[in-house]
């Protein structure tokens, strides 16, 4: 990753131009062509440094979501984790160090649909699923500062 890649990552987390050819505008700022901007972003995405280039949507805007937690007996963890990850509505699923050892985010079209997924997981596993929906969201409008050290 060179200095231009770092600038792409640092300087364009906000305000991607809403113009017909945004990558051309970025290229003009960085002194490279639009094609090179696109090629570099492709490369950063393939390498995993960039998850996507697009909109970050406020939670609850176009659907409902919740954070769910389960205390899964360790011997069952693999099977339960695979079952949970199998739902299209589950978009993050982490094993964490706690009695509540499985944490995942469920997103669906509305609150009812989220509840149906939680109920289904509980019914299929015979385990309780804690439902921890966001009530308030504190955020800083400046993106995440990366330390290039």
């Amino acid at each position: 990753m060179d200095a231009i890649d770092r600038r792409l990552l640092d300087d364009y987390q906000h305000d991607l131009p809403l113009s017909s050819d945004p990558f051309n505008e970025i290229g003009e700022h960085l002194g490279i062509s639009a094609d090179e901007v696109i090629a570099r972003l492709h490369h950063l995405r393939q390498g995993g440094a960039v998850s996507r280039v697009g909109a970050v949507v406020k939670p609850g805007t176009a659907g409902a979501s919740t954070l769910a937690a389960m205390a899964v007996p360790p011997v069952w963890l693999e099977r339960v984790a695979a079952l949970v990850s199998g739902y299209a509505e589950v978009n993050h699923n982490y094993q964490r160090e706690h009695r509540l050892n499985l944490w995942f985010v469920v997103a669906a079209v509305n609150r009812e649909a989220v509840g149906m997924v939680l109920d289904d997981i509980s019914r299929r596993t015979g385990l309780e699923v804690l439902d921890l929906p966001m009530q308030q969201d504190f955020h800083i409008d400046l993106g995440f500062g990366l330390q290039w050290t």
Partner: protein
Amino acid sequence: MTQHLDSIDSAITVDSIDSAITVDSIDRAIIVATQDGLPLVARPYDAVAEQVGISAVEVRARMRAMVEAGSIRRIGVVPNHYALGYGWNGMSVWDVADDDVMAAGAAMTALGFISHCYQRPRLPPHWPYNLFAMVHARDHGAAQVLVERIALALGGMNRGHRVLYSTRILKKTGLRLTG
């Protein structure tokens, strides 16, 4: 309810879930069409327009309106903390009195290194914590330092906390809505 906590830092916003802005079906189609990111082509909004069935001018106008309304927070490059070496994903959780939640959330966010801070319900007896803040760091020690800084910022508002480190990522995709 959306409030800007001007007294602390004008960049900090707090959104209640009840404030969710309802978007119409075309806005929703734009969000669904772009949830995996904009296509990396010379004219990305043209490609979105084609998929949604409206003009690119309307796509951009609607996205701009969603940014202004706050339903889109930002449009840009979304870094992947893991791949960048911020592999210690600690979910710090805090028990703060209900009356202190606004001040505590603002104080945490003002530290500048927390990507998300959410209030969630307590579920006694299983779960006593009501404020969640993700901490991303390069290693365990660096993550602990950040957690200590949060504890310092909360002072007496902190009635108890812990950090749940992720031992494994079992699935990770972006926010995904079915069209």
